[in-house]
């Protein structure tokens, strides 16, 4: 009752002073289940309402999440975020839920992946994808100097909103960061962070230096370590440390980026060191990503881009990561190449090739290739065709070759409508065996899904999915998570005012 009144009160207030409110709402309704699981018409409704009120330099934000399933013990309606902010000139103060990063995330990174809904695989509870901090933040930013101070409890987003508050936010953090522009092009910075746990206080520190060398080169280096021991700037296995360094180079239409990482005993639960693994837009590659392990990982990544004036493109990426388990080295390697041709003002075609090997998954000779073709027709009609293929072998089953296929076709009429068909097929024995039969199916498995998107106006966007969707690991905005398989009907409506 209290929650219903809260929704009505918020909506009523919004109506009284609509000029100062902004609203974002995502509602998703599903009828379906994991494929081959009963009942196959399980319903689920998830709604996330984000309301903001701005008055001069003050701003208030609330996030209200609601989840409903037929088994009501999993339902919740929670005010999951509430923040009061004051912002004037370079000063920024926040009390409540906020997102912040120290350096490049070696010590701390909180985030929200808007538009993505997480589903807890055990309890099948759905909730927003974010890892915020609940506490207070004070920041000052200027051209020469910036400083931030924070105190708060970071969210463990593996626990859904209904979980115990102590489980969701078990630690209290205190953090400080400052950056100083020494010369025109060089910045030096440092950060301190401590967390209060039942076992005691842990302290961490970091130093960072960044700058531009002429107009063509830019660099960034950061070293972070746990404080309290005798080691300083120690990159050996004896110290808890994280070292990240990157440089990029630009010359006309050519661009190059190179990065190096060395992480040891640095899985802090609230940090997110750069993984140096390419984030692929292609489904077969996005799913085969390597998940970093800051407990012990070293590696590097290089990427080159070239875009010609006539619209052709070329991209190359090489990644290598190494973990050590019980003295044994486990390596991940990937080479990716992509070329794009602009055939005319209306037609573009892209092709990619990828070769990788992942010793942790015991997958070798992993090859992938694909073509993406897009054509714009008269009256703002458009067509896009995406064909992808991947093949791999596993160490423990050398006789078996796993093959993955993706084909998708999208028709669109800008700016309002798009409709698509996505077909997937796999011979992966981990997927072909159906859980609801006693037989071990080994041949192949198919997924077929239909999508429809309609933008009613600038405020409303509706997306519909019907069919079966293949799950697995996925990465969005640099953060990787697990997507569950789905069979059924799904409708998502987005509202923005």
């Amino acid at each position, binding site marked *: 009752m209290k929650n219903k009144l809260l929704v009505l009160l918020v909506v009523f207030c919004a109506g009284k002073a609509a000029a100062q409110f*902004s609203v974002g709402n995502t509602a998703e309704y599903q009828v379906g289940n994991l494929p081959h699981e009963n009942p196959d018409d399980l319903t689920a409704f998830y709604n996330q309402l984000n309301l903001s009120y701005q008055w001069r330099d003050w*701003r208030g934000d609330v996030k209200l999440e609601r989840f409903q399933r037929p088994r009501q013990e999993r339902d919740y309606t929670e005010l999951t975020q509430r923040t009061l902010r004051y912002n004037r000139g370079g000063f920024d103060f926040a009390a409540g839920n906020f997102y912040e990063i120290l350096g490049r995330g070696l010590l701390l990174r909180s985030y*929200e992946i808007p538009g993505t809904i997480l589903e807890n695989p055990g309890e099948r509870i759905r909730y927003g994808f974010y890892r915020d901090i609940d506490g207070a933040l004070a920041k000052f930013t200027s051209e020469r100097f910036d400083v931030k101070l924070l105190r708060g409890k970071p969210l463990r987003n593996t626990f859904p909103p209904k979980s115990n508050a102590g489980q969701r936010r078990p630690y209290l953090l205190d953090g400080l960061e400052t950056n100083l522009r020494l010369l025109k092009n060089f910045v030096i910075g440092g950060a301190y962070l401590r967390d209060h746990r039942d076992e005691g206080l842990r302290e961490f520190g970091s130093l960072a230096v960044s700058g531009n060398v002429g107009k063509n080169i830019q660099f960034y280096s950061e070293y972070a370590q746990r404080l309290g021991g005798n080691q300083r700037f120690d990159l050996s296995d004896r110290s808890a440390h994280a070292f990240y360094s990157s440089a*990029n180079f*630009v010359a006309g239409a050519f661009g190059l*980026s190179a990065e190096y990482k060395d992480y040891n005993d640095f899985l802090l639960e609230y940090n997110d060191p750069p993984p140096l693994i390419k984030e692929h837009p292609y489904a077969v590659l996005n799913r085969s990503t390597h998940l970093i392990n800051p407990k012990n990982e070293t590696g590097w990544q290089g990427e080159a881009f070239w875009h010609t004036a006539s619209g052709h493109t070329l991209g190359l990426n090489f990644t290598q990561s190494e973990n050590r388990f019980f003295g044994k080295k486990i390596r991940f390697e990937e080479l990716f190449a992509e070329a794009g041709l602009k055939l005319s003002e209306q037609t573009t075609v892209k092709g990619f090739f990828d070769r990788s090997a992942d010793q942790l998954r015991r997958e070798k000779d992993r090859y992938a290739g694909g073509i993406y073709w897009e054509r714009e027709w008269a009256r703002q009609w*458009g067509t896009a065709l995406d064909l992808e293929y991947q093949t791999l072998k596993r160490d423990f089953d050398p006789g078996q070759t796993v093959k993955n296929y993706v084909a998708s076709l999208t028709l669109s009429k*800008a*700016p309002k409508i798009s409709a698509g068909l996505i077909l997937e097929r796999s011979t992966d024995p981990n997927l072909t065996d159906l859980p609801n039969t006693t037989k071990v199916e080994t041949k192949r498995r198919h997924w077929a899904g239909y999508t429809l998107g309609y933008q009613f106006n600038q405020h409303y966007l509706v997306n519909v999915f019907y069919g079966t969707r293949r799950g697995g690991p996925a990465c969005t905005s640099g953060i990787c998570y697990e997507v569950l398989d789905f069979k059924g009907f799904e409708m998502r409506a987005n509202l923005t005012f």
Partner: protein
Amino acid sequence: MQKIFLAFFPFIFFASTAFAGKMPDFRLQNLDNKTVSYSQLKGKKLTVIDFWATWCKPCVRSIPKLAKLHEQYEKQGVQFIGVNVDGTRNLSKVRPFAHSLNIAYPVLLDVNNEIMNKLKVTAMPTIIIANADDEIVFFHQGYRPGDEKTLEEEIKKLLSASEKADEK
């Protein structure tokens, strides 16, 4: 049923209202590592903000078309700003990627997705247009081939409205 109605109530309530949002005067780092504010960069008449990421296929497809529109309308008081939301995973690649694409307008780095959240952006790419009074007057999510024509029509319409207002 009652619960579903309550959850959908905001949709029904706001159905007939206009955009209420104002563009906040945000501060972000640019590709040269310098902190700049929205008020320093905004256009005299209109500001077009494109939220994009290097991993987002439709974003990358739309950028050359936006760059062309920027070239066409810059002199008429329309400023384009790219807000990159790649996060730390791809941050090192944004500058070489943007340079090789020859993006002539400023690109800012929203590493925390702070501005994206403030403006209730949930899909990539998203285009937002703000007028000279910082009022949000256009909001479009996603990219379909031909969307740039709709954007151009909107810019023309808003420029003509701004000229009429100036005449008064």
